[in-house]
């Protein structure tokens, strides 16, 4: 199903759409307030963008530097070219320790690699410990947002879900009660776990350490209680030096949720005594995206989700309508690079309003890349016959003044005199909810000829 079909289904419940829109707009406003509080916000964005540009131009060197320093620190480093290799590396480590229970903190990379179903198929229990992720996990869904994974669910829906899966009492969606129940439940999971898996927000080439940002402290809880911590990172997560962290940490939380900084920005530099720390560095299509000059800056992304919160289409279509690990504007330029056929409708799920590019803390020109993907998609993917034909004909008409005159007059004649049932038919998506413009007696050409005879 295309994005528009899925979005149309989501839009059948207008009250829910309004609620979803308002919830995300609230976060966008919080972000605006937080950004206003930082003097030189635009300078900070510019700096972050340049650091990322430098990273992508020297990615090989920084990765090698990171690996050498991480090894020196006693971290075990693994390389995975794709999702399959990533999953088998993780499983191999889990198996070596005879582990049965894994606690995971939110990681979009492991979502991208479909790690949970893979480990579950090997009889390993995986529990997502971020509250939002946990909610979608028990609902057997995928995250609909990269920072607010369960934003598509109301409190009341979570209440029902918890009653069914955790045996909680009906609370009419009381967030405090529900959070406490989840906390109790997750605490046991943390205590029983053998292995913790976390993502990586920033890996520092200079030190060989990495930083994980959470608001719930779940990454720390997991990593500190177990003997084995596996951190999974995409190759683009590298930053050159520790001093660059200040730039990104200031931008990340403000852009994501409007907080000055995430509650926990945890630095991991080496394994604790007697414990193991692994890091899996994953490509999974990233070098290919890096090779596409027009789209390489999509790899600047620090996964703050600000483009989703600001996107008027995302807010009204819901994350699941994108049918991709990363939804919204940034997902719409990343996903076609992975599977053009599956994701060919995503670059069209935008009015190219440009709000995403303006809000992006690392200045990715998202809406310009959407435009560029469109040009590629119509060439490489089969297009609906009607759309293709109409636009091809339009091209011919618009390059020829005689045809243009004829087409303009015919269209105006049709709009004026054709029977309503023809104009307002199923074939005309414009007319389902909108009136067509009222046709005047003249067009500007004729008026000009009559009134401004002497000027060419």
């Amino acid at each position: 199903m295309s994005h528009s079909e899925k979005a149309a289904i989501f839009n059948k419940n207008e009250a829910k759409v309004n609620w979803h829109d308002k919830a995300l707009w609230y976060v966008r406003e919080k972000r605006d307030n937080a950004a206003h509080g930082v003097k030189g916000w635009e300078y900070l964005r510019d700096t972050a963008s340049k650091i990322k540009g430098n990273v992508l131009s020297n990615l090989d060197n920084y990765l090698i530097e990171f690996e050498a320093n991480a090894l020196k620190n006693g971290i075990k480093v693994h390389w995975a070219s794709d999702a399959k290799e990533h999953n088998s590396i993780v499983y191999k480590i889990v198996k070596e320790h005879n582990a049965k229970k894994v606690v995971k903190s939110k990681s979009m990379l492991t979502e991208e690699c479909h790690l949970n179903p893979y480990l579950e198929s090997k009889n390993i229990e995986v529990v997502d410990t971020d509250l939002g992720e946990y909610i979608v996990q028990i609902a057997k869904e995928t995250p609909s947002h990269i920072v607010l994974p369960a934003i598509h669910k109301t409190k009341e829906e979570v209440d029902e879900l918890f009653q069914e899966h955790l045996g909680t009492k009906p609370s009419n969606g009381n967030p405090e009660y529900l959070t406490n129940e989840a906390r109790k439940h997750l605490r046991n999971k943390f205590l029983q776990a053998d292995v913790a898996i976390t993502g990586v927000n920033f890996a520092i080439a200079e030190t060989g350490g990495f930083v994980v940002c959470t608001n719930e402290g779940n990454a720390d809880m997991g990593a500190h209680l177990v003997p084995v911590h596996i951190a999974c990172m995409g190759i683009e997560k590298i930053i050159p030096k520790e001093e660059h962290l200040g730039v990104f940490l200031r931008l990340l939380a403000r852009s994501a949720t409007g907080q000055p900084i995430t509650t926990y920005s945890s630095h991991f530099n080496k394994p604790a005594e007697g414990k193991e720390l692994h890091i899996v560095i994953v490509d999974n299509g990233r070098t290919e995206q890096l090779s596409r000059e027009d789209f390489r800056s999509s790899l600047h992304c620090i996964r703050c989700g600000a483009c989703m919160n600001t996107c008027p289409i995302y807010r009204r279509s819901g994350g699941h309508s994108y049918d991709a690990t990363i939804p919204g504007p940034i997902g719409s330029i990343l996903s076609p690079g992975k599977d053009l056929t599956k994701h060919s409708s995503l670059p069209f799920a935008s009015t190219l309003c440009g709000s995403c590019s303006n809000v992006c803390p690392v200045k990715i020109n998202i809406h310009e890349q959407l435009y560029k993907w469109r040009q590629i998609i119509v060439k490489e993917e089969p297009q609906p016959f009607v759309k293709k034909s109409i636009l091809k004909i339009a091209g011919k008409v618009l390059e020829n003044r005689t045809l243009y005159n004829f087409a303009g007059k015919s269209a105006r004649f049709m709009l004026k005199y054709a029977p309503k049932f023809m104009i307002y038919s199923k074939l005309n998506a414009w007319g389902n909810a909108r009136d067509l413009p009222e046709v005047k007696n003249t067009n500007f050409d004729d008026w000009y000829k009559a009134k401004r005879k002497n000027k060419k």
Partner: protein
Amino acid sequence: MRVGLFIPCYINQLYPEVAIATLELLEKLKVDVYYPSTQTCCGQPLGNSGYEEDSKGACQLFVENFKEYDCIVGPSGSCIYHVKKHFDILEQTPDVVKVRNNAYELCEFIVKVLGKTDLGASFPHKVGLHKSCHGLRGLHLGSCSERMDPHFSTEEDLLNNVKGLELMKLNREDECCGFGGTFSVFEEAISVKMGKDKIQDHLNSGVEVITGADHSCLMHLEGLINRDNKPLKVMHIAEILNSTI
């Protein structure tokens, strides 16, 4: 200074009053304005749909029509943005470069090139300004709510000088209306919902007339207003700036 008047295809055919107001306004401002009679369209509908290859003929014709003028002025931020931003599919001959560098949206031309903001217009109504995205974020006709830049707005500068006009404050002042060219047809459900929300924002703010520098957005909003019988009128900013009591 010889100015070529660019009238976008849909304005020519469906909204001649907008084109007339634009021409009259420029004439009032003593601009030496010409209307090249073989113009058609900037090619944007094709480019935005992924068919910019098929728009090359239209783009080339645009350049042929306007290459001899010092400035090209059109009452549509979106079309002008397309000329400036996406005409790189053409070979960058001196003519193409000249046309791209000298294309202006109407308000931008009046404020930045002519240096005028008080045009002597009067329009005693409560007006809501729809800041169309391509003009706003593409042509920088104003500051955007996402960016931490000082506030400015070319259109507000002009409207604030219109006698009797009360410019109303919106809740989401620069949110997209959902038109987006062919988006309005291929993503119909979202497009309609965005337009309805935009209209509600204007209604909640006590607006009588929605105006803007891009009539395509206004066409979409007007279609919804008329279908739902909402107590709102839609006028292009040229019509307001050209009006007197």
